[in-house]
């Protein structure tokens, strides 16, 4: 069994994001970039499945600028066997990314495609579901547990009401929740080994997909600031304020 894992390079989740002064976007120059956190869970799960003997190959793919190679390299350092970078500049919407991934799926013929449930930059939560639609494959979104049963997967999904379990036939798409597993850190020897693993580079324009944006980003602004609050000195004062000033208790 072969697993394709899609990973995205995003601003690190510990960075306080700042809006550009000209309101065209957020500041990305000289900002720490990392793998989108739930994509780390996706890689981890794929590597664990391979380690259990149920998969033979894990391929990491990313779509983006040249530097997204670092994100693919990180996936290789935690256990993916080889990488693919689809090079594309500018804003890529999930629809375009899913069409590019569709081309890779057609070429690589994986049995499973894993990725994070959502990217923490554009917060779209679309790509996995869109890829499933384009391939007409089953989708298991927001997965917090995956069990492989022959040619089927039993997946537990995090839903608003609690947990849902579904059974899907392979080939299938799974989007991973943060609670799926605990991603490992790359060891230094594995980081060195990853440097020798192959990364195939493909230009998005060579895949015959129109990636031009369909959504015009008119402006990006700071969210309205909350007005500064006050510090109270005691519990008694807090309760009085909540009762008499805010009138919420």
């Amino acid at each position, binding site marked *: 069994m072969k697993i394709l894992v899609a990973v995205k390079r995003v601003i690190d989740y510990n960075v306080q994001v700042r809006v550009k002064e000209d309101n065209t976007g957020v500041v990305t120059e000289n900002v720490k970039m990392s793998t989108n956190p739930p994509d780390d869970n996706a890689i981890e799960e794929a590597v664990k499945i391979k380690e259990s003997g149920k998969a033979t190959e894990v391929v990491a793919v990313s779509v983006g600028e040249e530097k997204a190679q670092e994100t693919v390299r990180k996936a290789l350092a935690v256990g993916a066997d080889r990488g693919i970078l689809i090079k594309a500049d500018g804003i890529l919407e999930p*629809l375009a990314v899913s069409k590019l991934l569709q081309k890779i799926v057609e070429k690589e013929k994986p049995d499973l495609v894993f990725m994070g449930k959502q990217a923490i930059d554009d917060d779209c939560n*679309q790509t996995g579901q869109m890829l499933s639609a384009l391939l007409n494959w089953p989708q298991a979104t927001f997965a917090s547990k995956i069990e492989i049963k022959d040619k089927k997967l039993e997946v537990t999904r995090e839903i608003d009401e609690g947990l849902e*379990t*579904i059974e*899907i036939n392979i080939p299938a798409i799974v989007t991973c929740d943060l609670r799926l597993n605990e991603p490992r850190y790359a060891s230094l020897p594995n980081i060195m080994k990853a440097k020798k693993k192959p990364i195939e580079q493909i230009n998005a324009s060579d895949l015959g997909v129109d990636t031009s944006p369909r*959504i015009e980003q*008119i402006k990006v*602004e700071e969210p309205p600031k909350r007005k500064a609050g006050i510090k109270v000195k005691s*519990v008694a004062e807090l309760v009085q304020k909540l009762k008499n000033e805010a009138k919420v208790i």
Partner: protein
Amino acid sequence: MSVLLIAEHNNKELKPFTLNAVTAASQMDTDLHAVIIGSNCGDAAKKLSELPLVKKVIQVEAAHYENFVAENFAPVIVKLAESYSHVVCSANTFGKNLMPRIAASLDTSQVSDIIKVISADTFLRPIYAGNAFATVKSKDPKKCITIRPTSFDPCESSGGSAQIEKVEPSEEFNNTKFVKREEIKSDRPELGTARVVVSGGRGMQSGDNFKLITSVADKLNAAIGASRAAVDAGYISNDHQVGQTGKVVVPDLYIAIGISGAIQHLAGMKESKVIVAINKDGEAPIFSVADYGLEADLFEAVPQFIEELNKLNTIQK
């Protein structure tokens, strides 16, 4: 131009956030139709027809719609979408799972999780976990939009009498089977809709200490929330998590106890009307969004707080 709203329901009743989604959809175009897909969902369809903003209800029933599997729902909506300019749904796990499958089939670039309708094609949406707001304009002929329910008021729920049209179901998608759903039952208000939320963080130090949070929540008839750190530490189950990767809540009163205020937690609660923070670290970021901050050891302050609440006669049950 007309809008197709996808109703969320449990086959008997509409989910409350469907009313918020109706409000959002009606701001895109007042010619608003709503589709309900389910199994024996006639009662819920009737409720939908009573919403005054809904001009027509489309009801699609089959056994394979009982459990809301997106692979079964999407083809129905893609077919219906021929007659509409917009398809709209709530951005909760139901809508997040379903809408992109519809959008890709319609070759539309979806606009996710909007918090404001600026015009029929222009919307405001948070990005980077609410650290920036983007104004975006959809250029696709058909628009697929998910809306953040807490950013829109619920619509009127009675007085309407829209016509209910029944439409033939699509075929079942055979590669996905529903197995089971484990709903978390509680006597408390639901986290997403509670008027008061009391949350605990890493500062609680143990799952046992969450009893303090429970006691405060009992006094205020509040839902119980938690930070990701508290969930990761195993103090409380993850369905209580408030934040970018948990639930986004907008209560009248949010009480953060022993929560430092990581970016991802703030994203889930900073729109609350009144925020209280109790934390012994005066520099904790939570104080930057708190209306009332109390710099104190929670293990002293919270028992006192419960005592003070006991003294009040305005306890809401």
